Every structure is written in structure tokens, then in C-alpha cells.
């Protein structure tokens, strides 16, 4: 059973791999648009990777209004 801490950590790892950046550059409270220099469409690209990893389906609207990894992890945790 994942805890919110492990879910957050796994998302950070996935984001690091997806956006080709080292894991230690990312922090749970980072604004991922700013840290990764990505736009909303690129952020959506991460969702499929997250779905595959956690074996869930995550509607696009779950990312709406979310700009930090911690909140994203909370949204995912509620579906695990």
C-alpha cells in the first residue's frame, strides 16, 4: 500500500525520467511549470506515464489547477 510520501516520491521519479532531468532537481512543492519549463500540454504528457505506473485512469481534469507535485500526488493517492 502506497503512502502519500511514497506516491510523491514515485511521481517525482517519473517526472524526472519523463522530462529528462535529474531527480534531485525536483521537490514536492515545486511549481512544475516553472521548474521544468513546461506548458500545460507537456504537463498532460506526464499523466499517461503516471497512469501506467500506478495502473489507474486519471481524467485530464485531475490536473486542472494543479501546479505542484504534492497536490498531484494527493489527487493520485485518492484513486489508489
Amino acid at each position, binding site marked *: 500500500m502506497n503512502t502519500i510520501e511514497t506516491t510523491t516520491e514515485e511521481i517525482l521519479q517519473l517526472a524526472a525520467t519523463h522530462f529528462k532531468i535529474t531527480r534531485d532537481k525536483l521537490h514536492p512543492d515545486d511549481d512544475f511549470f516553472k521548474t521544468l519549463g513546461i506548458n*500545460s500540454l507537456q504537463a498532460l504528457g506526464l499523466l499517461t506515464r503516471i497512469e501506467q505506473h500506478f495502473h489507474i485512469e486519471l481524467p485530464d481534469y485531475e490536473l486542472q489547477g494543479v501546479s505542484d507535485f504534492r497536490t498531484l500526488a494527493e489527487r493520485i493517492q485518492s484513486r489508489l
Partner: protein
Amino acid sequence: MLDLRQFDSLGAALGAALDRWPDEICLIEADRDRENARFTYRQFKEAALPLARAFEDAGLGAGSRAAILMTNQSKWLISAYAVFFRGGVLVPLDYKLTAAEQCALLAHSKAEFLVVEYHVWRALMQAEDSKTLAPRVTLVTEAPPGADLRGAQRWEEFRGAGEPTFVPRGRKDPACIVYSSGTGGRPKGCVLTHENYLEQCMAVAPVFPFWPGARYLSIIPTNHAIDFMGGFLMPFTGGGAVVHLRALRPEFIRDAFTRYKITYMAVVPLILKNLQQGLKEKFAALPRSKRRLLGALMTANRALTRRQPHLRLSRALLGDIHKAFGGGLRALLVGGAFTEPATIEFFHDLGIPIYNGYGCTEACTAITLNDLKPFRPDTVGKPVRGMEIQILAPDAEGVGEVAARSKTVMSHYLDDPEMTAETIVDGWLMTGDLGRVDAAGHLQLLGRKKNMIVTEEGKNIYPEDIETAFEGLPVKEFCIFAANYLWPARGMVGEKLVLVLHPEPGKIIPADIAARLGERNRRLPNYKRASGYLVWERDFPLTASLKIKRGELAGQIRQSLDREAVVPL
């Protein structure tokens, strides 16, 4: 395509389409690798009429306002047709706005009916302002079993028995109220008539024809004028089909091209650039010999299609690329914001025509459209059929404000005669954009006269609308400007918002201001954020009612400071 001159309303035209092509597919709703629904025109009618009957029983009639707050999906279009059938006025709202913004627009529109997706409704109900909303009927789609809908009804169960009564409308009657901006302050509800839409369809059809079998991939939110035309009215009145995707991810969009043999897709510049980036990365990974061959083929295609598109030739030359786009793609339409010529050129070289256009909600979408005869990436094309444009007060280089006149120009802004009078002058729509018309009759856009930006996502952002996010800052006063309004620039790419901070008398701006502003910025969607700030030591000029005289303040700043004064956030 239907002869739209014969019809007085969208309800009548769409109804005729449903009868004209009963066995053709009009709508497909896909979700990831699944297909949720597929409708022929007959099935669409069978789905919509019982809904129209239930609307009738609930009192929806001529002029009743019905808001739709949904992602792109089949229930959007079915609900819209049912509203038009009953002579209602549709209020399409942006599901991406915050719940508070949605509440404000719902209240402003005075919509008596609301059709809303469950997850959007849930968020809406959490907003404090939702308590003051009182639509007579709220229909919630896809609510899970057992969900407490607090008086709202399930869309799926809201059906009436018996034939509904069709309510005819006149061409000058309002069809839709579409909000072009003003979420934070003064809502701009464009009242668009049936004539506006019917004329717009006829104006765009020569460049963008539909026929049974033609398919449009709908990815821009349908509340947006572009998708309402391209992803509803145009395909339906031409016998074509709309494809919706419930998960709008780059990989599913790519997959949909091949799976559904897409003919057209409208995009905003951001999506086009993403597509370009993805293709460039793929090309860079090719072995050197293949890369050189591709380069040579692109050069050949460019030379051969300069005067007009040759799809068969391009598909023969660059078969693999076209196969990846499904093999049936005729064109991508780009609009909603300014597109860089280099991006348009990239796709043109691949033989994928990009129809670059210019328009606004107030003009019911397109004002100009590039018909690619010849290819001109530097312009937004010529006025569409029935559209007149003029350049007001041109300077020595012929640059001035673009004004447009056509039967597609909106009736007025809802409940705002003052703003209407400023925007429509003697029948001409003042666009607030600066441009010039060249010898070939093409419009070139070169900047903005008004204090606003348009993002690559096609979002119009007015500084006044986001200032509330910065209230309570430790300054005497503050104000937000479009950087290009402070310092006019000949360009519309990479537009930024700048905060102007005036410190309290005798105090300095706190050292941690960047962190504080960053924290406020994060409350806003990423495309609405201020990108920098500057410190202004003088009092802001104010009106008698203590509003900031923005034009005067901008003039003062322009005289004293330049762009270097902006501290990036």
C-alpha cells in the same frame, strides 16, 4: 453542404442536416483506446429530441438561456441542439475556468438552465458564490450512482415523452452568449445571432468544406468560437463528423489521426508548436542518410506547393509523414492567437497545409483566412467572404487599428451598452489589433492597441482580470500591464504581463517581494501569471471615482522607464 441561405436559425439548419444525412456518422466520442459512443445523424436526432421535450416540459422556450459547462464530448452537442430546437439561447462556458469565475459568468448570463459535467459541478458547488446561483434546472452528466445531486437532475434521466415542439427563431435573434473575457472584472458576453453563425459558416466553407465522410478532430474546448464552428456547425451542416477525445494527451491525439482518418483539426499555436517539436525530435533521431533524404523531399515539396497546396503530390513525396497523420488530413487550422511564420512554414514544407487565420469571438470567429494560394506564412490571409476590413488612422507604414464589418459581427455585449458603443462604431468592429493590408490584400498583424495579451493557448488575458490575485501586497498601490502596451512592439509573440508596484510613502519594496509575488502567481493558471515587476515611485493618476487612469500611467512609465526596468519573476 446545406444551402444555409434557406435557414433562419441554427435549430432549423441543424434539424435539416439530421434529416438530410440520416445514415452518415456525425459524432464519435473516444476515450483512450476505447470508443464511448458513435452516432449517425438519425441517432443523434433520436438522442436529442427527448431531451428537447424534457426542456419543453421544464419551460425552456424562445430566448431561454441555457449554459453548458462541459469538456468536449457527445453530450455537449446533443444538449446544444436540444436547446436550439426549443429556441433557447446557448451560453457555452469554459470548463477550465475556476469555479468562482464560472459562478460569476453564470450569474452574469442569468442562465435559467445549466448542463454540467459531474466533476465540474462538484467543483462549482464548493465555490462560495454557487449558493447565490439559482438556475431553474441543473442537469448533471455522468454522476456516479448514489451521488447526492442536491436538487440537480441526472442528464441521462432527463427525458420527455412525445414529440417536442420546434420553436422557430429569426436571423437577428440571439443564438449564443459567448464570453470572450472578463472573468475577473467586467464580463464580455458577446451576443451572437443566428445570422452571425449562418453567415460565418458560409464565409468559411469555401476554404474549409465538409462532406459526408470528412472528419474533424475536436480538441479546442467547444465553448471556444473556433471549435463551436469547426467542431459542430461546419461539419454538421456539411454532412461530416466530429471526433471527440475524452483524454486530450499528445499520444491519444496522434493515435486518433490514424484510427479515425481525420480530415481537419483546428489547433492553437501552442499545440502546433508541440507537434512541431515532437516531429523535429523524431527527425533528429533518424540516420543521417534518411535525414538528408527527408530534407531534400521537404525542399522539393516546398518548391512545388508554393503557389497552392497539392495534397496528392505531397502525400506521394512524404508518404510516411502523411501516414502518421492518418493519410486523410487535408489541413490544420490554426487560430486563437498569433502563430510564428516559422512554425507554419515547417508544416507547409511537409505538405501539411496550415490555414492560418485571424478573428475573434466578437466577429463570430474568422475575419481573415489564408487560402494558401499562394503560400504566405507572414500574413493571416485575406478577409473571408462577406467581410470588409479597414485600417484606421494608418501611420507612415500603413499600420493602424484593424476594423471589421460583416454580417458575422456580434449584436452587442450582454448588458453593457457602454462597452458595445466603444467596440462597434458605425457598424465597424474595433478589434484593438494593429495591422496593415499589403498590395495583395493580405492582412499582416503587427501588435495591439489595447492593454491585453493573447497566449499561445489562445487565451485572451486582460490585466484587470488577474489583479485580484495580487490584492493585499505590502505596497501603496499596484497595477498590471501588458508589456507591449507599456512599450509598443511590432510583434505578437511571447507577450508578457508586468506588475507595476508603487511602495508606501517612505518605505521600500520588501526584500522578499519576488517570493510573495511568486506565491500569488501560483494561485493563477500558468498562462495568467505575471512574468515580472517594476517599481514606480510616483502616485498613480486616478479618475474622480478613484480608478487608475491606465492609459496615462502607461504613458508616464513609457517616458521614464524601459523594458530593462522589469525584474523577472
